């Protein structure tokens, strides 16, 4: 048993933490918050050049070939910002989907570009008025003369505006089992008929994508047509703990803010951290943070050591999404007025915690899949 990071991971953690302190201080994060994609090209390219986008991509496809735990170390630090941008969408979920679903040829074509940041992926699966799960995929791709024509709308797609290419889940065959008959199609976003826009509101970089008579060659289908969902599910199983680690980083940041504030904010002639009610907010925040952290770490370990991990992954997602959400609530209780001031920085996390809450399935969805995975 060893629950510590190895030396290389400790070094990586320090490197990313240093980068965040120097390159992405609060002033920068507040600017990124208003940026259309959350990732101006110069920043995106620098981070890609550091190898942090391509970590999970095997070396033969131009990536770092790192373990999930290595990658989680990076995302935990990015989550502390929180640093927005399509890092997860492209480098984790997108890359893993191509790895799980694509042919050797497709991997060779796509992944090196993803690793170096010259292509940016976003997986478009969800659709309006549908519950998360394979049943939501209804968008049809009509085959004709070796091409597919896509028509329909995908909703709540993370980083679709930032992406250069969309991996679109489409229904190519009807089936009793909703997980069958789904294909994953790589669509160049510059094709005619593709339009994406970011949804405004109390959420970040989540988009609507419309397809109007978008024609792609049949070769745009990743791997075998109709087998998309199982491949996407395998990709999600690996990607989710990375998303969780980003949420864990978010929890840590709001924990640090709250502890610091409760030690330095003086009311009634003493630090507010002396009041039991303020302490209790921080204690609950701490419990959420640690619950998110350790469920995530265990899921990562199981995946990296090739153990059956499904129930642990669902556990981690349910706990981390709820944990980040609640951690932000408790942080607001600690901070009162100053916490709602945009320049203080807490609301960046609050918004991110809401945005990620239902990303790739909400806690209830994952609790139920956990019950399935446990053979209840």
């Amino acid at each position, binding site marked *: 048993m060893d629950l510590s990071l190895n030396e290389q991971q400790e070094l990586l953690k320090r490197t990313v933490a240093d980068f965040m302190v120097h390159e992405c201080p609060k002033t920068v994060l507040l600017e990124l918050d208003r940026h259309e994609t959350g990732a101006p090209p110069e920043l995106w390219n620098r981070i890609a050049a550091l190898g942090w986008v391509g970590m999970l991509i095997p070396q033969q496809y131009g990536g770092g070939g790192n373990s999930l735990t290595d990658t989680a170390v990076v995302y935990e630090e990015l989550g502390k910002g929180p640093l927005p941008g399509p890092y997860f969408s492209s480098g984790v979920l997108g890359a893993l989907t191509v790895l799980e679903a694509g042919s050797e040829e497709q991997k060779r074509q796509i992944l090196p570009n993803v690793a170096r940041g010259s292509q940016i992926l976003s997986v478009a699966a969800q659709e309006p008025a*549908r519950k998360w799960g394979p049943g939501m995929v209804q968008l049809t791709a009509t085959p004709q003369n070796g091409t597919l024509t896509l028509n329909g709308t995908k909703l709540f797609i993370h980083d679709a505006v930032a992406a250069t290419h969309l991996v679109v889940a489409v229904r190519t065959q009807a089936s009793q089992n909703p997980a069958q008959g789904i294909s994953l199609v790589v669509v160049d976003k510059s094709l005619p008929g593709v339009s994406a826009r970011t949804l405004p509101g109390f959420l970040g970089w989540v988009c609507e994508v419309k397809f109007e008579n978008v024609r792609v060659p049949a070769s745009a289908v990743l791997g075998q047509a109709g087998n998309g969902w199982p491949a996407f599910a395998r990709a999600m199983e690996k990607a989710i703990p990375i998303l969780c680690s980003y949420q864990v980083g978010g929890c840590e940041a709001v924990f640090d803010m709250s502890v610091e504030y409760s030690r330095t904010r003086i009311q009634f002639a003493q630090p507010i951290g002396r009041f039991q009610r303020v302490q209790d907010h921080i204690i609950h925040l701490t419990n959420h943070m640690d619950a998110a952290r350790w469920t995530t770490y265990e899921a990562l370990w199981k995946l990296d050591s090739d153990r059956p991990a499904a129930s642990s992954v669902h556990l981690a997602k349910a706990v981390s999404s709820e944990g980040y959400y609640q951690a932000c609530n408790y942080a607001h209780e600690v901070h009162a007025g100053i916490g*709602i001031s945009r320049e203080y920085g807490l609301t960046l996390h609050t918004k991110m915690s809401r945005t990620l809450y239902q990303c790739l399935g909400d806690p209830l969805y994952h609790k139920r899949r956990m019950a399935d995975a446990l053979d209840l």
Partner: protein
Amino acid sequence: MNFEVEYTPEQEAFRKEVQSFLKVNVPAGLVTTAAVEAITHEQYLMQRELGRKLGGKGWLFPTYPKEYGGGGLNLDQTIILEEEMDQYGLSLPPYYNSGGNLGAPSILVWGTDGQKRQFLPPIFKGEVRVWQLLTEPGAGSDLASVKTTALRDGDDYVLSGQKIFVGSNHEVDWLWTLAVTDPNAPRHENLSWFMLDASLPGITIQPLDLLTAGGEGGAGSGVKNSVFFDDVRAPASALVGGENNGWKVATTHLELEHGGGGHIGRNRLWERLLHYCMTHELDGRPMTKDQDIRDLLMDIYIDIEIGRLFGVRNYFLTHAKKARSYEGPQSSMWRKSGNLRIAGFIQKILGYLALTTDPAHVVEEGHIELHQRSAIVGLHPGGTVEVQKLIMARRIGIGRTVREEAGRLA
């Protein structure tokens, strides 16, 4: 027991009178919108115009003495007025006026005859809008620790300092605030209460960039500001209630802020949420037929119903002049923490839809998205949840005695 407000024929006649008045005087362009920041200046002027018309009839501050421009009406009539305003999505006054609502009682109790005649009629008639200025960067829950000073200099006081989380958007006429008039006096004995002309030289009002400004209470509070005092000279007549007596003057209104007055009315959040879920589908059937959504809607409904009943009880206690104890802060605490719970339930029901204002997907014209933000923001104005608990514990009889509690949170 009887949970229904029953109206006499006289009262029903009054309701008709109010309805006719509002039908004529509420302009079509005066809409309530989720995007309170977006209330145009034109709309704001309509609100003020309506306020002056209501003020002319004594309906703007209906329970206050006619002598000073109030309505001299009883609580039943006030409820009728509020219910009818509510039909238009409006409150009394129909614009943010914290300083009038919460300052007038203090003036009525503590002002000299001259001050009452000077300050009250313009407020009650809707001629001025007033903001209250309490919080400072270093004085939130611990309000008595304000640092803004008002030092006597001849016939004037000279004010210096900063207040935050103040007011709304568009103009303001008067400001009232607390400032230290005796820097050497003990806590609670060093403050004075001032009613200031907002146009005095040295006053700067600067909007804050917040998650949202709303929260609870107040009609479309819009925006919050910092207010800076740079050697602002105010006449001595601006001081109400005696020098160094400001803490007592300010606490006159605290019970009002802590929800003690009670509330009867519709819950628009529930109406909107239910409407949306009944008229929209998930996986091909009405959202309300989904068992998970039904269960969550009932969680919300229970929370709201309990809050409603606390408000009705408080309204009754106030109305029937019964003894009150912890009920005011209980109601306030429930509403504040309840809104945060409810926001969580709503996100479970709606997911991303709870968060977006995108015209193609927005739920109930943005009111749901606004609630996601205002549920957080609303935790603090008028006393944090912790402050409500503090007062509630004291009233239950397990907190510290009054002498101590004024100075300590725990």
